[in-house]
């Protein structure tokens, strides 16, 4: 039921994009890229190529598995000491570059996020192996902080020289004792084709080493939920925490914005999992369902309307009037301010056009905010999404596993004999589904995008330049790598990885921030229009003044 695209740009125009860029590529490359660029027509079940290796020499937005594992999923947890096993660069470049925030409950609570530990491998470690150096690094980190947990992240050279980080982890647990939890990740950058491989590896590690280690039910037994795939960029988690609290919803764990080890260990005591970034965390949701019987739903608390929708789903799931009423009160209250800000921004933003190329969920979620701003998303795509993130989870059985995905560990989990506890009976689930709730489902980005819009996976730098040259969007959303190139072309770029050091953008207050920021951005074009005197067509002749 996609809506028709209603912009001044005609659909025919958008379709010329593909020919234009493909013509530039060598045949082999064109053939491959062709399948990743399509005109959206969701009802016709289009198939997009995604999660395949970027072609050498094509400049991509993508990072590596290590970045996805260490930087994205494990990075935001404040009380795990993260040690990068490898040469210095990989660790250095992931040192506090993602802007995820954290707020220790007490000033003395540990926060190791500001540290960058690396084994800083040297020539001799590459030749003779680096396990000893890694052990020493773990000892040093332990002596320094006495942390509850230490995680080890492997970089490319580690896999090649055959260091076994898992063995080192086991040995060091024994050596240090003290109840310490040490675990390793084989997240070498050459695994998979992007950060996405690292997310999967991190999910497996979270499940094997942390989730379910602490059965104590803390706090209220009511309305217990987890939020999965929220990384607290710019304080997003704080805003969502605030909203949940207002509604009386009991947030047990966020994976992994503003998180701690204890919250992970305790996460299985929740009764509902909400998946925000499907790409990076759906594996944990699936495993928790199988093992502990916790159902999951997809949510999008980006955009005021869809934040409200999320809250209503929670109310519906728990089904208690008290909660449902409270949620409606909160929504009504929050919406007052939202509407005022929205009306003000709309004056400038209505009818403008956006393009979004970022991440594995943001290119989808942020379309909500642009819709609220009366803006059309002309083109969008993910950096590291899979087909299910575009076409919906129904296509998962048909996705072919290629060699690049085969080197990512798959773990099979089973029902936990003692702790498996289906939160809802089959009948209850059916009734909820009949009432419009979808469990274990995600429809993907293409379902939301208008018919005729342009969907491109793993947009290359070259294609990005072409997109801008040909269509001049009013706002382009990507990351810092793209920012200055896009702005050189006179189009403002909004960073959706780091929010240009602003935010939060999630929830209600976040929506207001976003409206304001886009309103501001929508009028920065003026600088470009300023001509120097000598560039103006008519030169003003000097006049003598008597």
């Amino acid at each position, binding site marked *: 039921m996609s809506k028709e695209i209603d912009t001044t740009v005609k659909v025919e125009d958008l379709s010329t994009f593909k020919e234009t860029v493909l013509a530039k590529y*060598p045949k082999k490359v064109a053939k491959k890229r062709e399948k990743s660029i399509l005109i959206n027509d969701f009802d016709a079940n289009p198939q997009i190529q995604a999660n395949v290796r970027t072609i*050498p020499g094509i400049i991509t937005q993508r990072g590596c598995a290590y970045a996805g594992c260490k930087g994205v999923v494990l990075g935001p947890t404040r009380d795990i000491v993260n040690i990068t096993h490898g040469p210095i660069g*990989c*660790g250095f470049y992931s040192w506090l570059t993602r802007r995820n925030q954290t707020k220790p409950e007490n000033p003395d609570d540990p926060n190791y996020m500001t540290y960058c530990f690396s084994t800083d491998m040297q020539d001799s470690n590459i030749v003779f192996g680096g396990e000893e150096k890694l052990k020493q690094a773990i000892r040093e980190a332990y002596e320094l902080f006495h942390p509850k947990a230490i995680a080890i992240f492997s970089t490319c050279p580690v896999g090649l*020289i055959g260091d076994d980080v898992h063995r080192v982890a086991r040995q060091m647990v024994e050596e240090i004792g003290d109840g310490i939890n040490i675990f390793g990740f084989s997240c070498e950058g050459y695994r998979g084709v992007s950060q996405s491989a690292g997310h999967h590896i991190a999910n497996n590690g979270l499940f094997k080493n942390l989730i379910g280690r602490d059965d104590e039910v803390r706090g209220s037994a009511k309305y217990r939920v987890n939020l999965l795939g929220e990384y607290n960029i710019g304080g997003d988690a704080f805003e969502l925490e605030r909203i949940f609290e207002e509604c009386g919803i009991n947030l047990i764990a966020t994976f992994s914005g503003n998180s701690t080890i204890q919250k992970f260990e305790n996460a299985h005591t929740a009764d509902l999992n909400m998946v925000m970034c499907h790409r990076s965390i759906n594996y944990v949701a699936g495993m928790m369902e199988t093992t502990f019987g916790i159902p999951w739903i997809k949510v999008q608390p980006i955009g005021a309307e869809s934040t409200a929708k999320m809250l209503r789903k929670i109310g519906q799931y728990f089904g208690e009037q008290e909660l449902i009423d409270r949620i409606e009160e909160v929504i009504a209250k929050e919406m007052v301010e939202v509407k005022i800000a929205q009306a003000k921004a709309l004056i400038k933003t209505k009818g403008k056009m956006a393009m979004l190329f970022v991440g594995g969920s943001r290119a989808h979620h942020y379309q909500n905010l642009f819709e609220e701003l009366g803006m059309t998303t002309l083109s969008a795509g993910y950096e590291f999404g899979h087909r299910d993130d575009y076409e919906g989870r129904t296509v998962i059985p048909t996705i072919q596993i290629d060699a690049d995905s085969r080197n990512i560990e798959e773990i099979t989990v089973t029902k936990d004999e003692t702790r498996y506890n289906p939160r809802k009976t089959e009948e209850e689930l059916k009734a909820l589904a009949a009432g419009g709730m979808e469990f274990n489902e995600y429809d993907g980005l293409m379902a939301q995008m208008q018919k005729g819009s342009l969907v491109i996976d793993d947009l290359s730098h070259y294609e990005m330049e072409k997109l801008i040259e040909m269509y001049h969007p009013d706002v382009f959303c990507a990351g810092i790598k793209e920012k200055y190139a896009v702005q050189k072309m006179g189009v403002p770029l909004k960073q959706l990885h780091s929010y240009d050091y602003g935010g939060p953008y999630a929830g209600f207050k976040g929506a207001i921030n976003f409206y304001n920021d886009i309103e501001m951005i929508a009028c920065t074009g003026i600088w470009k229009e300023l001509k120097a005197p000598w560039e103006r067509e008519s030169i003003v002749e000097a006049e003598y003044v008597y």
Partner: protein
Amino acid sequence: MNIAESHIDKNNNKTHIASCNACKQCAPLGACIAFKGIEGMLPMLHGSQGCATYIRRYLISHFREPMDIASSNFSEETTIFGGNRNFNDGIDNIISQYHPAVIAIASTCLSETIGEDVQRLIYEYKGMHENESDLPEMIFASTPSYQGTHLEGFHEAVFAAIKALSENAGSVGNHINLFCNMISPEDIRHLKEIVEDFAVQSMIFPDYSDTLDSTSWDNYHRISEGGTPVSSLRRSGSAYASVELGYILNSGGMNGRIKENAIKQSAGEYLKAKFAVPLVRTGLPIGLLETDKFFDHVSRISGQPTPQKYKQQRGRLIDLYIDGHKYVSGKRVVIYGEEDLVVALAAFAAEIGIKPMLCASGGESGKLQETLKIVLGDLYPGDMIVGQGFSFDQMEESMRDLNPDLMIGNSKGYYIARKMDIPLIRTGFPIHDRIGAQHTRTLGYEGTTILFEQIVNALLEDKQRKSPIGYKYM
């Protein structure tokens, strides 16, 4: 536990194993900066794509300019069967999209670990495309990060470009080579201005003053304009002299190496050995004394007296020193960053009466202390700590008892300055918590003037802020 004791022995060398908060980046990053100084160039990293992405991200946050770096994008299979297919595809695709005049390739830890022979890959690629007349030049720098920091990568790339392109013209030309080290685009422009004012024809390399600091564009350029032209690089072999800024450069580049597969040479040394181009080496011209040395060299090489303009600048600087002396005298400073920068900044601090308490660098040439002793001479403080291969963590520990009044270095040390509540003067790389890193000026009499004023004003600001009375005259 006292890390200072356990991690630093009495010669201030690190005895610890791991790195906590490193004060260095990896080698291909430096190589990419240097390569950006070549006109019409597109860089490719031979290895996994993650390194290229991280390095782009990092450079862009400093320079705030587009920075395109391709990668040959290894898969796990590539690590087993070798990267020649990825290499060839990568080059093909770069050419079809960008038509660069030069493709500059740097290796990463991954391709070095599996022992890729990139020179051979280039040779084979050229062989396969023998009949194509407009094939780009290809330059390769070997930059495994387990054998040196970003600075070694930078100098390795400068050397590689010269080695690949320099030619013997048969006769000596009337131009000089100026190898300017890793400095800001603004400082490169200033150096150009100086040599032009001496009426010397020069090739400055690497000249990324436009490519990494370009104007707002009317038309989009796939490859930023500017950079040292290939033709100038070719002529470097027939220059009548080379001037190299920096005493250490990559001379200590055997850092942690166990197999000495390449004897490290600087670009200037190479040209001297190969084409007998005389080489003058001096420090980065920061501060009065080091700038004097630089002007003296240029004056002698060109046979021209120092132009009046610079005599005036020098005079104004001395006048400023006198005015500002009372504010800086006896202050204690911590200096950190790339080794040659640290040497120049320490010499400057010492001459204005600020005492360097700690000179730290992530670099490990093994030459920092000896160089500081020579350059600072009598001004070398006996109790100064010199930290080679230092991390920020080690710096912080060493600083506990030093009572510094200020720090000079890159953004990464901010957290220490914040904890100790002292001002940080930002210079070097990276600067990503201030705007205008491309425009930092430190070189020459003028750059020193700006730096001196920054330091005095930061100290005054600090004093004013901490004073219970709101003094207006300081």
